[in-house]
């Protein structure tokens, strides 16, 4: 072999020298302190890991249940528009209002930073996501989204054929995905390695069906499955699929292969935080069949990603209308007034309450918050069936090396076959350099094993040490010996992760009426009103609500 070396690969595989040094230190430690051995065998194994719990401010959020404990307002602020909620839909609405001349717009957000489920963080090693972390190459018919991506520098131009050209720095680099199955990392997430012929046949039949559905149109001439999903066909041939669960549908259609079913369950958990048994067949198929992005230099299967995940998009949304964003504010006691709406906001840092009087208020909040905020509003809409929000746990682990098993090297998305978690992302994947050194891996696990309330209670009672132990136990099966290489681990528990499109939620319930504005004063935008929690949906909901606000009364 000539003119070859592999600094990149060598850099991240644990060096033998390093290993010997550690072993030697370990051995010395053992020899010097035999008495310590018994006392700290399991617990001390991750005592070296720095970090703690991060995450949604649920203790403050829960004050909303009993706002009488909060102080009386010490001042009053007046504004044209108040947006409650700084997630993607709130920010998208703010941007839209700003570009249509609405200057006096104030946004309050409960958390310390905006972003909601698309928030990101950063440490000395890398930026990393705390939630949503990619955007599939979008459908070219989604003009508003393409325009935004161009402003963000993600689309660098348009080819003569009219297709967008994406920045190669934002398209997910190769190698993209790998699956640990039968002790080997295979390329891609659809199980292939060691999968029997009968299962392979089912898998290829399923993807044949998806290819058909991706092209399919209803009697009304609209796509069977579209993003935003409101653009999907109303043809009952497709919409009736919303009435049954994805699992029942798969059983009915003879998709019984455990490999295929694992993969589909994985997909549902990844996008909806719920298993195939909990989501509707329409939504389960939508996950695959709605991806019809086109680009000059990418396909519908490609995704856009950034070290901080969709925090990148959040930051660009924020930057386009950066004024009057107040974070660390709990909104409560919303009342209609003759001139508009009055809302109290409690500042978590100063512990003072402000009264905000607005002509129009946009509730860009999840339904469990919206419901409480609207407690005193007559004719407040209700969402039925009640949105299902599974809790999630996300951990960002800084590791100085990753013991690598056989097969494809470290990829962007790394999933273990048969695991309850949905794998981990290499936050440093888009790095261009060859510099060796520590990296951050973002581990995702929806708590989808039981009903959301029970899972939430369980999650809030789980300590940092217990999470760490669970996460490391799982990672150890994929990467034996990783524990001593973990330097830092931050754990974030999302009590209410994202909405799951349970049977009947998308097409059978009150979703469409629940988003209707009230008396041209109260407006609603959130992915709970879509039923699937995607960036595209949140972006669409924000623009839709802002457009409604801009209409004359």
């Amino acid at each position, binding site marked *: 072999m000539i*003119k070859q070396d592999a600094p990149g690969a060598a850099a991240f595989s644990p060096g033998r020298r390093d290993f010997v040094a550690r072993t030697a230190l370990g051995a010395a430690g053992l020899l010097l302190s035999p008495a310590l051995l018994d006392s700290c065998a399991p617990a001390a194994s991750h005592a070296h890991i720095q970090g703690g719990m991060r995450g949604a401010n649920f203790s403050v959020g829960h004050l909303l249940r009993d706002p009488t404990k909060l102080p009386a307002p010490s001042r009053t602020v007046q504004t044209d528009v108040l947006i409650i909620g700084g997630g993607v839909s709130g920010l998208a609405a703010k941007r839209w209002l700003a570009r249509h001349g609405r200057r006096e717009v104030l946004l309050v957000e409960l958390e310390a930073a905006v972003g909601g489920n698309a928030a990101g963080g950063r440490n000395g090693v890398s930026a990393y996501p705390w939630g949503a972390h990619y955007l599939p190459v979008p459908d070219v018919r989604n003009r508003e989204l393409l325009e935004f991506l161009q402003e963000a520098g993600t689309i660098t131009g348009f080819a003569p054929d009219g297709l967008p050209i994406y920045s*190669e720095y934002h398209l997910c680099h190769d190698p993209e995905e790998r699956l640990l199955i039968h002790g080997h990392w295979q390329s891609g997430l659809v199980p292939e390695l060691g999968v029997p012929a009968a299962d392979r046949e089912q898998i290829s039949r399923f993807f044949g069906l998806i290819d058909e559905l991706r092209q399919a149109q209803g009697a009304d001439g609209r796509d069977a499955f579209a993003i935003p999903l409101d653009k999907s066909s109303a043809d009952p041939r497709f919409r009736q699929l919303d009435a049954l669960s994805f699992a029942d549908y798969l059983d009915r259609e003879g998709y019984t292969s455990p490999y295929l079913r694992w993969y589909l369950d994985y997909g549902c958990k990844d996008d909806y935080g719920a298993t195939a048994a909990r989501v509707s067949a329409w939504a389960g198929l939508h996950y695959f069949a709605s991806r019809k992005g086109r680009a000059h230099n990418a396909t519908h299967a490609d995704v856009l990603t950034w070290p901080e995940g969709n925090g990148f998009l959040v930051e660009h949304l924020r930057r386009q209308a950066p004024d009057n964003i107040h974070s660390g504010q709990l909104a409560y006691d919303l009342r209609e007034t003759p001139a508009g709406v009055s809302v109290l906001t409690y500042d978590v840092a100063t512990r003072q309450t402000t009264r905000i009087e607005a002509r129009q208020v946009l509730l860009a909040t999840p339904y469990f918050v919206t419901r409480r905020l609207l407690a005193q509003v007559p004719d407040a809409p209700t969402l039925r069936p009640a949105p299902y929000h599974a809790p999630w746990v996300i951990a960002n682990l800084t590791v100085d090396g990753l013991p690598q098993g056989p097969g494809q090297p470290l990829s962007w998305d790394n999933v273990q076959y048969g695991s309850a978690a949905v794998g981990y992302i290499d936050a440093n994947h888009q790095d261009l350099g060859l510099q060796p050194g520590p990296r951050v891996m973002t581990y995702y696990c929806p708590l989808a094993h039981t009903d959301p309330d029970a899972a939430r209670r369980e999650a809030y009672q789980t300590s940092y040490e217990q999470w760490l132990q669970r996460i490391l136990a799982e990672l150890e099966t994929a990467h034996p010996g990783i524990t001593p290489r973990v330097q830092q681990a931050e754990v974030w528990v999302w009590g209410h992760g994202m909405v799951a499109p349970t049977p009947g939620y998308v097409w059978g319930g009150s979703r469409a009426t629940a988003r209707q504005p009230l008396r041209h004063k109260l407006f609603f935008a959130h992915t709970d009103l879509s039923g699937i929690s995607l960036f595209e949906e949140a972006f669409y909901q924000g623009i839709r609500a802002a457009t409604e606000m801009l209409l004359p009364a």
Partner: protein
Amino acid sequence: MANQPVLPSARRRTGEDHLPALLLGSVFVIATCGLIYELIAGTLASYLLGDSVTQFSTIIGAYLFSMGIGSWLSRFLDAPLLKWFIRLEILVGLVGGLSAPLLFVLFEYVTSFRLILYTLVGLTGILVGLEIPLLMRILENRFEFKELVSRVFTFDYIGALLASLIFPLVLVPQLGLIRTSLFFGALNVAVAGLLLYRFGETRPYRRGFTAVVGVALLVLAVGFAYAERIQVYTETMAFQDQVIYSKSTPYQRIVLTKNQRELRLFLNGNLQFSSADEYRYHEALVHPAMQALPHARRVLVLGGGDGLAVRELLKYPQLQQIRLVDLDAGMTQLFQHNEQLLALNQRSLLNPKVQVINGDAYRWVRADTTRYDLLVVDFPDPSNYSIGKLYSAAFYQELDHLLAPGGLMVVQSTSPYVARKSFWCISHTLQAAGFHTIPYHLYVPSFGEWGYVLAGRNGHWRGDAGPLPQGLRYITPQSIRQMLVFPPDMAELPTDINQLNNQALVRYFEEDWGPYTH
């Protein structure tokens, strides 16, 4: 020993007449051992670190100085002197005996190998330095002073002569460094054992010491039995030729080997060049582009930390600035300091026109705003996804921003014979990034058929455009013309473009080279 010492003193102990002889015999053995350890350390240091004059000189100096410290320290040791001496022999045997295997194994794993080396040399020196003074004090009552000095030093120097003769002639060729070291360690320990049994006064502690001697001998014997494995384990032995330098940097392992004909540089075990024919590779890398750029002032070299491409560039006096960006400071420093390598690259990296930057090429290129007349892209082959990024259309577009009007870029492009798809993939990727390409190749005996792609914003390049520097050994206008011809077995074939989100090149490269490596 034929020459039995005459024992003049009445004070000698009865029944132990032969014992002074035994002690003097041990002088002979320990002298041999002492010098052997020194020779082993010196040889090993030159072998692993290169530059034998410096290594031998500093090792001998450190060793002799440490012996001095040992001699001085001997004053703090009081009776029972024999017990101290036996203890000392066991220690010398273990430390000296294990020194070679220890140094070989540790060489790969420790950052400051020199620290370990000199610590071990110092320790052995101190222990050996203690031996003779201690022995003389043990013997002081059994000989007259002049007799004592004369005999002890005679045996000492004879031992040294023996060691210096058998070491290169018998031991290294027959036993190897590791076994030699272990064998002489065992001899030292054996001396301890012998003294333990022949001197009556050792009885009180004989049992305990016997156990220690047994364990020490066992350790050395096990090492001796496994010497071959130790040797195999140390990768320095993987090279056919003598390793004259080797170092692990954060990025790679650099090994330099030498035989009578050539120097070879390996990175992570892969040959980078042989001094015998590297001129072919580097002349072909630089001159086809440079002869077409008579007005070139500035050149950027990416990779190429050996300074050999820069050596070729410096043959053009019109160049005012050559900037070299190489990831690994270990490489560029080696080629700025090692005399043999300085002779090879003609001190190119020390030239005032040359600026050496240790940094990541991709990051550097994105941040740099200078315009260059020539870009020399000399990266390792695209054998993994990290390096594959440096062959992507996106990277070439970044390089386009650094190119002055009329400028050229040349890219080392692996073997068009072995890795035909990879080679043409690089050419097509450059085209996709908007360049006109001129692929060419030549035969480099150490590598085989090797290829390059010359790229410019227009197709104006000519192979006979300008004068070539004097004294080139391969490149002429005729050979440039020949290099442009691709026979059918290397002819162009369709490939995908190498993109960051679809690294076709890494897959081609794996397919192309796979049959040669697995």
